[in-house]
């Protein structure tokens, strides 16, 4: 399938988003910048390939290491806002979970960790991470400013 017409996400963005040493507000702004390409890719048939149950399981496993209450908060958010379990959501609804957690006032660290794992895994599952960008890192290096602007 030709996915070239979707915006691609730089792997450096994902690298920084997953880096727990980076400031939470930087990781948040990176996660938010990933929403347009994710939404575009999720509005096509590419979204049909997403195994939502598996993805939610991955996110739950990850945030349970960070905060024991994380999976419970995730599930409560889906029940409250979508009236169903997270694993029953359609792929298009998935990026909204952390946004709902944010508006509910869930602790910012848990929101950012959820965004990090959910958005980066979705990007890989949708095949919109630009592999050619890795070459740039090897040849000239990339600054945080480059990543935020891309």
């Amino acid at each position, binding site marked *: 399938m030709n996915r070239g017409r979707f915006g691609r996400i730089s792997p450096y963005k994902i690298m920084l988003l997953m880096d727990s040493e980076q400031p*939470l*507000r*930087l990781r948040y702004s990176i996660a938010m910048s990933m929403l347009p390409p994710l939404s575009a890719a999720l509005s096509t048939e590419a979204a049909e390939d997403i195994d939502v149950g598996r993805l939610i399981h991955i996110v739950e496993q990850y945030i349970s290491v960070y905060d024991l209450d994380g999976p419970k908060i995730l599930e409560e958010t889906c029940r409250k806002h979508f009236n169903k379990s997270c694993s029953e959501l359609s792929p298009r609804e998935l990026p909204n979970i952390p946004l709902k957690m944010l508006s509910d006032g869930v602790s910012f660290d848990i929101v950012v960790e959820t965004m990090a794992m959910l958005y980066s895994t979705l990007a890989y599952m949708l095949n919109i991470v630009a592999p050619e960008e890795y070459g740039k890192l090897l040849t000239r290096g990339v600054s945080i400013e480059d990543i935020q602007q891309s």
Partner: protein
Amino acid sequence: MSTVYRFVNRRFFEELREESFSSGRDTEHRLQIWVSKLYSLVLDALKDPRTKSSIERFIQKTCREISMATLEADIVPEKFPLSVDELIEVITKAVHKVVKEKVEEYVNKGLVEPTADSIAKFAKIKALEILGTCFESSLIKLGVVA
């Protein structure tokens, strides 16, 4: 074009401490200067209405951990969300209460004189230390935009 945020590094917080601690007339005043500077940065981090309540919750969680480690007392509620100003009030009142309860222990350790003034001053310093450490730790994790 996306907005580019430049974040300060950890040295910024060391300099902020040094700067505050070199200008006050006594410990209490120095701590007040430090906490006030950190409080302004906290308010700045709360400017975005989309993230405000979530960041406040994170600061509350951090203050809860720090006060538990410092005072060995559970003084910050876990479930009930507090604004930063409410948090300051809760911590200040609770620290005074805990210090009064543990006054004998502090007197025996030579940390405080058994007088009302000395106990009140000690509690005020303790509350400022907890608030400062909590704000500093929260801001380091959140990131301060230069």
